[in-house]
């Protein structure tokens, strides 16, 4: 199953929910925001939101940057 995560193509062996996906990636889920197909998914909905074929996932977090940070992607 092909999906896009932060602009990069990835392959999932089976459909999985967002919560498990983040856990598998080893991501500290505090202060994380997730968009699925450009729709913001509240943290409470992660366990019941399943990532499907051709879905696009954006996983974002806060980082240092006043006016100085420039997009790296």
């Amino acid at each position, binding site marked *: 199953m092909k999906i896009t995560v932060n602009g990069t193509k990835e392959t999932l062996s089976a459909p999985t929910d967002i919560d498990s996906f983040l856990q598998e990636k080893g991501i500290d889920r505090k*202060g994380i925001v997730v968009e699925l197909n450009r729709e*913001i998914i509240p943290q409470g909905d992660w366990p019941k939101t399943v990532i499907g074929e051709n879905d696009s996932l954006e996983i974002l977090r806060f980082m240092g940057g006043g*006016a100085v*940070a*420039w997009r*790296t992607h």
Partner: protein
Amino acid sequence: MEDALKIGGKELENRLFIGTGKFSDNRLMEEAIRRSGAQVVTVALRRIDFESSQENILQYVPHECILMPNTSGARNAGEAVRIARVAKASGCGNWVKIEVVPDHKYLLPDNDETVKATEILAGEGFAVFPYINPDLITAKKLKDAGAAAVMPLGAPIGTNRGLETREMIRILINEIALPVIVDAGIGKPSEAAQAMEMGAAAVLVNTAIATAQDPAAMAAAFDLGIKAGRRAYLAGPAATRERAEASSPLTGFLGRE
């Protein structure tokens, strides 16, 4: 609170806003934020990098601070609105600093797109702090759009060149019934003090603190500079003159016939 800055639904005692970019170390940043006395801290939103383990920066921001996510990386109003909504969804409050910066070389903002983003986000209940090139007409449009303040640049981002846009900022302060927060380019506490003496409501500093030899000590110095400038503004600076004016009578000198 004496001389509080009422802004975005809050009352602030401290008029230094601090940015979180370019610090060599998160602990150093935390110390600098504390020493600055700043109550408002700007942060950026970025994609997670799966290759490197990054710490959650928010754990180094004192919890009593107001977070002001910025929309850096946005090249137009639509991208800025999207970033702002995502930031708000993280639960950090309703403040947002609009940065629409299509220019890579000087990092100058697109004032028109900034106005568009401000209209949309203010309508959604955000407290909107737009970063702009100091321009009176843009500032008027931002006021009408519901901005909480305007944030004109003193000089291009990260240049530490000071108040190069001084006269344009002075016009905004005189003409716009919104707090004017000088953002970008301020390199030294004396320059921050000058902005405050002119009547700026606050100053946002990042690079000048983060890249100083001792960021925490520089943060404390900016705090003092901004306080001094604010007090001078409230005290009403004396008039300047072309010619000398003695400060004591030019009569009654010792030994004169």
